[in-house]
């Protein structure tokens, strides 16, 4: 299998966090902590503004991960692909009003037990340069 895309970095993607998108996401995943919906409660809890639930990382990272997955040099076969594993390491909280910039890199491409593993890393930082999330996305392609 072709692993030449290993080490390739993709263009940064910037996403501006908004409180209504946080509300929509929190409802979809069943988060009911009042801080996700009420600015006064969020500030009372010591947050700068309404925070994003941890898994909101999926939303602001998508624009960086998508182009990496679809890159022809990476050559992922979507028909045979499954999302095998995922890791997030959270840093500075993400709040409404932040601009989060995410950069994706193809960390590894390898074969194991007849399956192809495609591992991507994304690093997301806020407008102050603080790291908010570091994520590892592992996709597995059957029948390499």
């Amino acid at each position: 299998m072709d692993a030449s895309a290993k080490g390739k970095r993709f263009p940064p993607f910037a996403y501006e966090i908004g409180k209504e998108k946080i509300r929509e996401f929190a409802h979809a995943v069943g988060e009911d902590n009042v801080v996700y919906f009420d600015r006064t409660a969020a500030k009372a809890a010591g947050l700068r503004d309404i925070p994003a639930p941890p898994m909101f990382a999926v939303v602001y990272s998508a624009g960086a991960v998508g182009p990496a997955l679809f890159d022809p040099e990476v050559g992922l076969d979507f028909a045979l692909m499954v999302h095998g594993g995922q890791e997030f390491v959270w840093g500075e909280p993400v709040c409404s009003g932040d601009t989060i910039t995410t950069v994706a890199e193809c960390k590894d491409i390898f074969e194991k037990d007849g399956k192809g593993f495609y591992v991507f890393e994304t690093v997301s930082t806020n407008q102050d340069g603080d790291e908010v999330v570091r994520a590892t996305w592992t996709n597995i392609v059957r029948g390499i």
Partner: protein
Amino acid sequence: MDVGDSIPELRVTPDRFLPHRYAGASGDFNPIHIDKELATQVGLPGNILHGLYGMALVARANAAAAGGDPRSLKRLSVQFRGMGLPEQEIVVSGTVIAVDGDSATVDTVAEQSGKQIIKNARAELRTT
């Protein structure tokens, strides 16, 4: 939290249209999640839940165990196995495997109809 403690179980039955709402919220409109006919044609039992939705339930259960603050979840890694379906109960359970100062590590699993849909989930929590 002490080593060996169980975290409170989270039980959720996603309704029929949950995958559509999660698709809109996350931006992942892969038809295997929202188009039952297409999903069936490619050999799936029906339109399946997004793996990352299941991971969000695991994240919720762990953050709730540490008091529910969004800052309590420091790290979460999971493996997706099998597939989740709407309209069937998901049970998230976990056990504390390590405690170090204000930090706890929890091994978590999400099951549906007795089958694991997320396994080897490991969460690192801030407990103060």
